[in-house]
C-alpha cells in the first residue's frame, strides 16, 4: 500500500508518462492530420504574399516538429503526473469515503474540466495559421486566467463538499454540482471573447477537426493519468496485498 509521498510521486510519474505517451500517439495519428492541412494554408498564404513565416521551417525541420509534438505530450504528462500525485496526497477532503481509484479518477476528471475543457470552451484551440502574433501575450494571459479560475472552482467545490456533510450523499453531490455550474457560467460570461478572428482562408472543417483532436489529446492525458494512477495506488488491484492488510 502506498503510504509515503515518495511512493505516490513515483506512481504519478509513471501514470503521467503512460498517459502522456498515449496522448502523444493520439497527436501523432490524429491531430497531425489537421495540423498538416493548416500548414498547407500557411504555405499557400506565404506563396501569394511572398514574405512571411518561412523562417520557421528553417529553424526546426517538420519531422523534428512531429517528434517534438509527441515528446511535448510525454514531458508534460510526466510533469502533470507529479503535480497530480502531490494534489492527490494533499487533497484529504476529496470524497473521503471513495476508493483510491474512484478518488484518483474524480480528481483527474475535475482537473481536466478546469485546466483543459473550460479553456477549450472559452478559448478553443487553434491550429497553426490562425493566431495573430500581435495578440499572443494577451491570449496567453486569458488562457492561464481561465485555467486559474477553473482550478479555483474545483478547490471551492471540494471545500463546499466538506461543509455539507450533514446532507445525504446524492443531495451533497447535487448541491456541489449546481454551485460549480453557476460559478463556471460566471467565469464564461466574465472573461472577454477570444480576440482573434478566424482567417477566411482557414477551412472550417480543418479548424474543427483540429479542435476536436486537441480535446481528445488533453482528455487522453488527464483522464489517462487518473485511470493509471488510480490503478497503481488502489490496493484492490493487488489482491495479495488486500488479503495481507486484511489479515494484519
Amino acid at each position, binding site marked *: 500500500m502506498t503510504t509515503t509521498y515518495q511512493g505516490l*510521486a513515483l506512481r504519478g510519474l509513471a501514470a503521467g508518462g503512460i498517459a502522456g505517451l498515449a496522448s502523444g500517439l493520439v497527436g501523432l495519428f490524429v491531430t497531425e492530420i489537421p*495540423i498538416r492541412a493548416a500548414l498547407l494554408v500557411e504555405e499557400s498564404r506565404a506563396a501569394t504574399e511572398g514574405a512571411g513565416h518561412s523562417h520557421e521551417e528553417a*529553424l526546426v525541420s517538420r519531422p523534428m516538429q512531429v517528434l517534438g509534438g509527441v515528446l*511535448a*505530450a510525454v514531458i508534460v504528462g510526466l510533469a502533470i503526473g507529479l503535480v497530480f500525485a*502531490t494534489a492527490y496526497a494533499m487533497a*484529504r477532503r476529496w470524497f473521503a469515503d471513495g476508493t483510491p481509484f474512484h478518488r484518483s479518477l474524480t480528481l483527474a476528471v475535475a482537473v481536466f474540466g478546469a485546466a483543459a475543457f473550460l479553456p477549450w470552451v472559452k478559448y478553443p*484551440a*487553434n491550429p497553426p495559421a490562425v493566431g495573430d502574433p500581435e495578440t499572443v501575450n494577451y491570449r496567453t494571459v486569458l488562457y492561464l486566467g481561465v485555467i486559474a479560475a477553473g482550478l479555483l472552482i474545483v478547490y471551492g467545490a471540494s471545500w463546499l463538499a466538506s461543509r455539507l456533510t450533514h446532507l445525504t450523499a446524492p443531495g451533497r453531490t447535487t448541491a456541489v454540482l449546481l454551485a460549480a455550474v453557476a460559478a463556471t457560467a460566471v467565469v464564461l460570461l466574465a472573461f472577454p471573447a477570444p480576440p482573434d478572428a478566424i482567417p477566411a482562408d482557414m477551412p472550417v472543417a480543418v479548424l474543427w477537426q483540429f479542435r476536436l483532436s486537441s480535446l481528445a489529446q488533453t482528455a487522453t*492525458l488527464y483522464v489517462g493519468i487518473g485511470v493509471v494512477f488510480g490503478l497503481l495506488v488502489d490496493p484492490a488491484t493487488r489482491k495479495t496485498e488486500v488479503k495481507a492488510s486484511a489479515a494484519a
Partner: protein
Amino acid sequence: MTSPAAHLSAVQVPRWAFAVALLGLLITYLVLQENGLALGAASETLHEFFHDGRHALGVPCH
C-alpha cells in the same frame, strides 16, 4: 482492508512536496509557454521544436 480515508490520511506530505509540484509546473511552462522570457534566444528553437505539441495541447500560439 483499511478504509480509504485512513489510507489517505496516513500519507505524510513533506514540505518539499510543494517544490516537486512547482518543478512540474515549471517544466510544463517551459515546454508549452516559453516565449523567450526564461531562456532568451535559445527559446526560439525550443518553441519551434515543441510547436506541434503546443498547438495540439490547446495552448495559445502565434
